């Protein structure tokens, strides 16, 4: 057999295994092991500092009658429907702007990415929460503009919107992916379209969007998965209030495990959340199959 390269660290049948071991070990310890343990614990009545007893599917049966869980699922879905489309539109819109050939564009690209770096910073979340109180900057600006102040913390939908706005503000990583995809679209396509007399709007819908369809789908899936797991922002900003209107499934898992000591039930909810996310993504794949194919 012809040798095509020299292995600088010597040859052994275990060389490959040794190279991948750090990852495999980490993956087993911090990926597969907790995953498997979580599944086992979901069939127990495990609590903090107490022994776990097998209780079959009791935790899953309890889910069917748990109104808090039902509400949390509804809130999470509402959050996804509010956040994901808005974030994709804002990211794509900004990417289109930053894709223009203007001097100093590198500076603007950096500036627009900064919120994504700051986003998970607790100080920013606290600052955000102060912006929206009754005497906060947002309501002051609205008043100046002659618009009625909004009860951001007092009503469910504005409270949800406040969290959505924070996450939309962190559009940097989604935007970068769009920007990179925009750069990959061959210029000749735009040149031909211009020669054929197509305007900017026609070019956008007939060239840019179709060429971006796979990237849009990628961002759609990734953002949906992240949104399903949303915890930090509602936990820090609203605490799930008002009337549990921003209480996501991840917050319920946290409360059951760490506040009410019901880790068995928390694990069962985690598995249901995992299944819901997988199903949601599968449905997304199914309904966008035609749009993503090269036949269009």
């Amino acid at each position: 057999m012809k040798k095509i390269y020299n292995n600088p660290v010597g040859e052994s049948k275990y060389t490959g295994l040794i190279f991948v071991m750090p990852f495999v070990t980490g993956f087993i310890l911090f990926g597969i092991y907790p995953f498997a343990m979580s599944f086992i614990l979901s069939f127990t009545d495990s609590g903090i500092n107490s022994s776990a007893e097998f209780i079959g599917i009791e935790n899953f049966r309890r889910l069917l009658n748990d109104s808090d869980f039902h509400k949390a699922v509804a809130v999470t879905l509402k959050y996804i429907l509010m956040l994901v489309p808005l974030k994709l539109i804002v990211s794509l819109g900004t990417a289109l702007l930053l894709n223009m050939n203007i001097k100093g564009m590198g500076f603007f690209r950096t500036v627009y990415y900064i919120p994504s770096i700051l986003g998970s910073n607790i100080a920013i979340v606290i600052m955000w929460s102060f912006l929206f109180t009754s005497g906060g900057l947002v309501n002051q600006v609205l008043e100046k503009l002659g618009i009625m102040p909004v009860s951001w913390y007092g009503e469910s939908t504005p409270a949800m919107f406040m969290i959505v706005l924070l996450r939309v503000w962190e559009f940097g990583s989604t935007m970068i992916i769009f920007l990179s995809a925009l750069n990959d679209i061959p210029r000749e396509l735009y040149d031909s379209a211009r020669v054929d007399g197509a305007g900017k709007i026609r070019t956008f819908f007939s060239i840019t969007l179709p060429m971006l369809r796979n990237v849009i789908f990628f961002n759609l899936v990734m953002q949906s998965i992240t949104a399903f797991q949303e915890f930090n922002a509602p936990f820090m900003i609203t605490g799930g209030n008002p009337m549990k209107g921003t209480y996501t499934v991840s917050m319920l898992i946290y409360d059951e495990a760490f506040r009410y000591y019901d880790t068995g039930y928390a694990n069962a909810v985690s598995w249901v959340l995992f299944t819901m996310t997988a199903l949601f993504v599968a449905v997304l794949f199914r309904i966008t199959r035609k749009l993503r194919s090269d036949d269009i």
Partner: protein
Amino acid sequence: MNYIKHGRIFLIISTLFSFLIMTSCGQTEETTVLPDGKLDKCTLRFSWWGGDDRHEATLKAIELWNKKYPDIKIEPEYGGWDGWTEKLNTQVSGDTAPDIMQINYDWLINLSKDGLGFYDLNQLSDYIDFSGYDTETLSFGMREGKLNALTVSMSGRGLFFNKNVYSEISAEIPDTWNDLISLGEKFSQYGKYPLDLDIQTGASAWYLSVVYVQQLTGKQFITMEGELGFTPEDIQTALDFYKSLEDNHVIRTVKQRAEDDGSSALYQSPKFIDGTVAGVLEWGSAVGKYQSVLDEDVLCAGNYLSSDDGNHSGWFIKPSLMYAISDNTKYPDEAGAFINFLLNDEECAEILGTSRGIPASRKAYEALENSGQLCGISYDSSQYLLDTDPVTLSPYFELSQLKEYYNIAIEKLSYGTADSKEVSEELYDKVKKYLERIK
């Protein structure tokens, strides 16, 4: 050949995986380290929560300890109250709890059901001097015959008022429930509120409503044994009382409070700092954080409210804070010696002052008395409380799940999504079922 290679790799991975599963599912035999009669050189972790006043005092006390006992180093771990329970629970369940912990009274129920969750302090009598405690105070830390924790201070939730605001608008500090309710009208003329009650982690809205009904009926909401003492009608009376406070402009509605403060605690709220809200119901051991955001001597301790005929009963007292030692500590003697220092050492008592309320240990109490530190609003409030013949708060009262039920009930009532009868029946059922489940 390839199959054999793949088979080996699979075997290695699956063996490792099975090993991990088996080691985690099996009961690991934890052996508690017994006292060895001497103090070894070591480093101990000590954790507590609180406001800045408590942090500063405790850090100074640790500094003193490190000077006196340089061989036993104390590593402080401290922070605010929010999220502290969850953090400690995670540490306890992961066997990474600090050696010495400040804990809450009700945590003993969940963290040490069988008395084995914390170190048995009775075994450390060579290092901890219990003579400053009476039997009743010691009994609060007992679980299944084991002394799991020592009470730092006995405290009750009292009313504290911004006296500058009260005098500005010529309002009297209230003595009775009716006084309090009548203050609403006067305060509303100035766009202010005489008091604040929360439905956050403190659940003070439900607390005050329960006190009102306990005084009215002589019943206890939840008994020391974890039995629900109120009927649905009693609960409805408590809820109606709460609603009357909102309706009479004594407190902000839940919605108004959320709009003003977001999810911030009251002492961080501009409405409290600027005097729009001029009163708070708070533990005597934790009032320091409210004091520290106002000018000196602005906050004063109010009376424990009574009925018009002078009935002061129904107010609660509890071991507000306790110290416990992790059952996993490798240095129980040293941890015991440090707890003794915190609770009984004169110099330490003077440094800590009333940052954790009025000390339950007689030795620390006397040290503060001799140094003239038994003063201030925390002390005033504790003295007023003793005049009311308080009831001991059941450790079940403050369980997180129950607090959540109280808060949901108050929120529903405040938002008007259900009437007090519906809410009271729902709350009664939930509390009763939960108490039956956890006992």
